[in-house]
């Protein structure tokens, strides 16, 4: 990428803050409390894993941070903006410029080539065509897919598709990477490759990463902090020894 690695923001700067965040759904007579009063602060440059069994509300929290969904009550403040108070148009801008997302099922558009998929957010950002192509090429190069840029997603392996999805998440140079079970559909070897890339973005580009997973081992290996959810509530929040300045991290090294 042309962007020089962003100087990691001070750990004291809060990137995401939620106050008594609730997201309730109504299903007929019953109310489902997917997110039920979560208060949380995530610092800029942090790598946080959200853990919990299925239905614990971890994906709902991620969607609220991404601005894909709105809270029923409470607030979620990202980069000093309360998403609950933004218009639909402003939320779209938030998703376009502030957030990059990757999903378990990759979510590439099947009818487009990798290059077209990766540059799609730039079209929404109204970036000129020439610049778009150059940036898509760079992003694909960063994830090792330069040679495959004119292939369609169906012609690629799961790992390659997820790498393309990562390239797309990076293309608008967001400060926040939100990953929803990014390795859920991948074998452990490929999953590791993807996680190494995510950690690279976190460390070299200074991106704040919030990853939803139910694989505790993965979280322990990569995340700096684990947040446990159950029934829409925060049940545990513990820091890990995965800080970049920790000796263990230095020993593992960073993929160039």
């Amino acid at each position: 990428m042309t962007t020089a690695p962003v100087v990691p923001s001070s750990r004291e700067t809060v990137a995401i803050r939620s106050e008594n965040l609730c997201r309730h759904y109504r299903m007929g007579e019953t109310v489902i409390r997917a997110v039920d009063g979560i208060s949380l602060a995530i610092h800029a440059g942090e790598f946080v894993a959200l853990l919990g069994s299925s239905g614990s509300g971890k994906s709902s929290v991620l969607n609220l941070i991404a601005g894909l969904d709105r809270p029923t009550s409470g607030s979620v403040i990202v980069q000093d903006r309360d998403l609950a108070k933004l218009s639909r148009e402003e939320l779209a801008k938030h998703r376009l410029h502030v957030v990059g997302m990757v999903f378990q099922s990759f979510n590439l558009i099947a009818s487009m080539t990798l290059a077209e998929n990766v540059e799609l957010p730039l079209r929404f950002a109204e970036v000129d065509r020439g610049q778009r192509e150059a940036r898509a090429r760079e992003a694909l190069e960063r994830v090792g897919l330069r040679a495959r840029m004119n292939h369609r997603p169906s012609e690629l392996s799961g790992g390659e598709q997820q790498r393309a999805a990562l390239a797309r998440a990076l293309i608008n140079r967001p400060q926040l990477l939100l990953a929803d079970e990014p390795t859920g559909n991948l074998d452990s070897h490929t999953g590791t490759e993807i996680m190494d890339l995510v950690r690279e973005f976190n460390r070299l580009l200074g991106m704040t990463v919030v990853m939803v997973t139910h694989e505790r081992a993965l979280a322990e290996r990569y995340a700096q902090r684990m947040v446990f959810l159950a029934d829409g509530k925060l049940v545990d929040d513990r820091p890990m020894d995965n800080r970049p300045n920790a000796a263990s991290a230095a020993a593992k090294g960073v993929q160039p």
Partner: protein
Amino acid sequence: MKLPDLTDLALRNLRESLLRNSLTTIGISVGVASLVAMLSLGTGLQQLFSRRLAKSGLFDTVLVSSRRELRGMGRDEERNGPTPGESRVLDEPARLEIERLPNVLEAYPDIRFVTELRYEDKPHLTMISALPLSAKSNDAFDGMQGSFFSSDSAAEAILQKSFAEELLGKTPPLGATEPNIADLAKPLLGKELTMRYAQRAPGASPPGIAGSSSGDGSLAAASYSVVSREQKLTIVGVSDLDPESMRGPTRAKVFLPLRLAQSLHVMLPTDLREISHTGDQPVYSSISVRVKNPAQVPAVEDAVKKMGFTAFSILDASRSLQQVFRVLFAFLGIFGSLALTVASIGIVNTLVMAILERRREIGIMKAIGASDGDVKKLFFAEAGAMGILGGIVGVVMGWAIGQVINFGTNIYLKSQSFPPEHFWAVPWWLVGFAIAFAFVVSLISGLYPASRAAKLDPVQALRYE
């Protein structure tokens, strides 16, 4: 999203479901084709009528008569204007003045008289009128036998079919089949007619009438004598149609070249009435004024009225005909649009199906930053692209249908020995209008699907498999 990107994405999406979108587009094409076919038939018919009417010389002609003509057509003006006795005389200076008006091609006097024609020593009494050379383009002479006058002053005559029948003693009984025009013309063309007429001989005032008056110059100039004359005429043509069918009982059956008729100084009924005004100069009962095109007829009419004459044109009557065409046009347009309306339902259906199919894709686009407006515009662009493509194909189809029908009808006309006609016209405005109309109808059809796609909840859409 910028327009080129939008168009690019829309066309790509249309290509993805090629069959379905092609079928929808063909639906629009058929709708546009029917609209174009209907409206071009209307336009073509209108143009055909206008051409026919223009050729008939009725629409670019203003008929001028003096208010002294008591049976004049402008009765209102007679009541409001000067009394007939005070108003202007329609003489040669007046004719020249009218001819100098802007946009006037020619102003020729209506020379029309009843006299005796002898053919093979048998007398026939009939109405004769004079025609300028420009009357050659009158479609009454389209199917005529023989030829038009060789010059403006040739001693030639053209007969109307019924007079030819009379000369040959072949007048068919009522209801019987009419004799063939070629059979009528054959024995007559090149033959000679002798016209006997009363000439107003200028200056030859008989002594004792003008001379006995106290030497008053104006009175002396006003007197003339009437002399019986003969003029030999060669029959050069026989016309099938009646060029004066509009004139009713005063219509002529024999036509002479205008200059010849003027040089004969035939005694006209007006000469008697205007005896106090006329010297050498003839006085006309009416003058026909040919205007450059029908649009200028009202202005010329006004100018002539200001000069103190009565003016009348058939254009006044044609206004109601234009009204009829407007109604016909509206009806054809409504019927043509029906198919397009049906096609627009096809667009709605196609796009709603596309939303269901591309639900996940819409969710993805929203997740990576597409706004509601982007999604809405994308669906609009797809609807619009189908509309424009369908419109272009439809115009071509409509034009082709018209050509085929035109061709087929002309074969039929030819078999019935009618001249070919072009009654199918696709003017440029119709091409533009049809494509624009298809575009607008498509956009309207896209309204609902586009807003539905834009409102899609991305969380739901991404969950949907």
